[in-house]
């Protein structure tokens, strides 16, 4: 299971890359492994839209599961990854890079305190495995 040190993680398996007041969101390697082959990604949040912590911003479908991607912070959407519609498999092959989903301008940076760092996330994932 891969993680990147410089990211923050939510218990619902999303990661955030925080740069200044901007955060980029995607789903973790653990998530893509659980889902297995991703066949469809639909990003439902639009550019300019205000999203609140916990709201659904995308749906991912694989052959055996469908999952909602929720954003663990609030903000305004400033970019959306158009590539995922045509190449959903990026979620499996490059979950931390090319499969980024949305970028937001944070409205409440304090919410970042509720997220885990890589080490805590790894521990958390270990307790979940059957």
């Amino acid at each position, binding site marked *: 299971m891969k993680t990147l040190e410089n990211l923050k993680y939510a218990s619902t398996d999303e990661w955030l890359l925080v740069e200044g007041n901007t955060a980029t969101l995607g789903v973790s390697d653990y998530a893509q492994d659980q889902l297995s*082959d991703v*066949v*469809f990604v639909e990003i439902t949040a639009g550019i300019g839209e205000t999203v609140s912590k916990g709201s659904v911003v995308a749906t991912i*479908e*694989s*052959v055996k599961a469908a999952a909602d991607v929720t954003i663990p912070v609030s903000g305004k959407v400033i970019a959306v990854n158009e590539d995922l519609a045509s190449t*959903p*498999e990026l979620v499996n092959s490059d979950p931390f890079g090319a499969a980024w989903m949305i970028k937001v301008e944070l409205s409440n940076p304090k919410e970042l305190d509720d997220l885990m760092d890589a080490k805590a996330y790894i521990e958390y994932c270990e307790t979940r495995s*059957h």
Partner: protein
Amino acid sequence: MTEPTIYELSSAGRIGVRYPESDVPAFDIPDEFIRTDLPLPELSEVDVVRHFTHLSTMNYSIDRGLYPLGSCTMKYNPKINEVTSRLPGFANIHPLQPIETVQGNLALMYNLQEQLKEISGFAAVSLQPAAGAQGEFVGVKIIRAYHQSRGDTRRTRILIPDSAHGTNPATSAMNGLEVIPIPSDSRGNVDLVKLHELCDETVAGLMLTNPNTLGVFDENVIEVIETVHKSGGLVYGDGANLNALLGITRPGDLGFDVMHFNLHKTFSTPHGGGGPGSGPVGVAPHLVDFLPAPIVSIVEEATDEVPPLYGFTIPAKTIGRVKAFCGQFGVMVRAFTYIRMHGADGLRKVSEYAVLNANYILSKIRRKYTLPYNRSYMHEFVVEGCWSDAPDVHALDVAKRLMDYDFHPPTNYFPLIVHEALMIEPTETESKQVLDKFADALLKIAEEAHSSPELLKEAPHHTPVGRLDEVKAAKELVLCCWLPDRN
């Protein structure tokens, strides 16, 4: 062994059936409405017969062998049902004919309602819902309507065990209820402690399958139901597993408030490759007024000279109509035929042997398959399709390898609370010989999983196609074909 599609078989100018010429004067069709392009294939009658006959040979079916699918109750489909349902007096009746001309149908439906009431211990039955899922929708809607009719609008949550069939939470969401999962305890029963905690005035009720999808009868079912009732909620019964209870116990007696039946499971009507089913709903006395409309009833009592006049009534607080016309009538005729042939004694035998058969298979395979719950089982049971010392092998591989032994696999990966689940329900119509063969196949596969796992991983070997690329199907999404002369 690829069979061409009807589009690939199409040859311009062919037609499979002729009609007489028009015998009336000609009338023009307005130009703006005339369809200029009808891109349907053109086949002769022989083409059609051969094509579908070829397709049929690529299917497994009950007529061919055992389907040990847990919670599906794949019992033998009696051929007499196919005769009775096709009697012209049933097959050629228009749904809107005046009731005087359909007294036979109405009498049959009325009597089926009465039979289902008696079997389940409920006060009234609606035959309208088209399938189990629709029966569930009706049941949950009735629960909501009941609370709303009492002015109780706080009950917006519903409790659903983690072992429940996916239709249960889906149905609740469709009714605008929040789903609260309730765990099972170590014996596979509903966790009573959790239940006591969760039951409050925001809970509309509990959806309970009993026996549940693990195949066990809830040891505390009376207390479970009383707990929900005490907090003002109602209990919905998912009747998918009724095959274990005919003449054994009646859900209405146990305290269930509403339940759906699956005529295509318990009552032998055929599965047809995915339907049609039929999902009648039974209710306790306090819910009778809420049933979907219309219900068949006696509108004029019998006298010495004349039989009763049957007709339709609208329950006083009905939740409305859920299907056009009166339901899956053709399916009802089959279920009625089945119940009449069995009577009370026959139905009890059905459940006794359904449970005997399941337990027999279990007794033969339990030394090689992990049974997660140490309980006595009813008409089905769940084992793990994996072994810690054969880490590459999953339940899916066991399932696919069974096809090489000419068996349909059991239900896979359900219920969700069992790891690599294989849910096995043989039904009562399978003989000891078939069960022995099936158990032997499972034992052999358990051995192969350790000695030559590639036999499982590459299975099935003898079927018209091998394992299919489901990822490709979902990504490329080819959902239909077209005539070759069209892009």
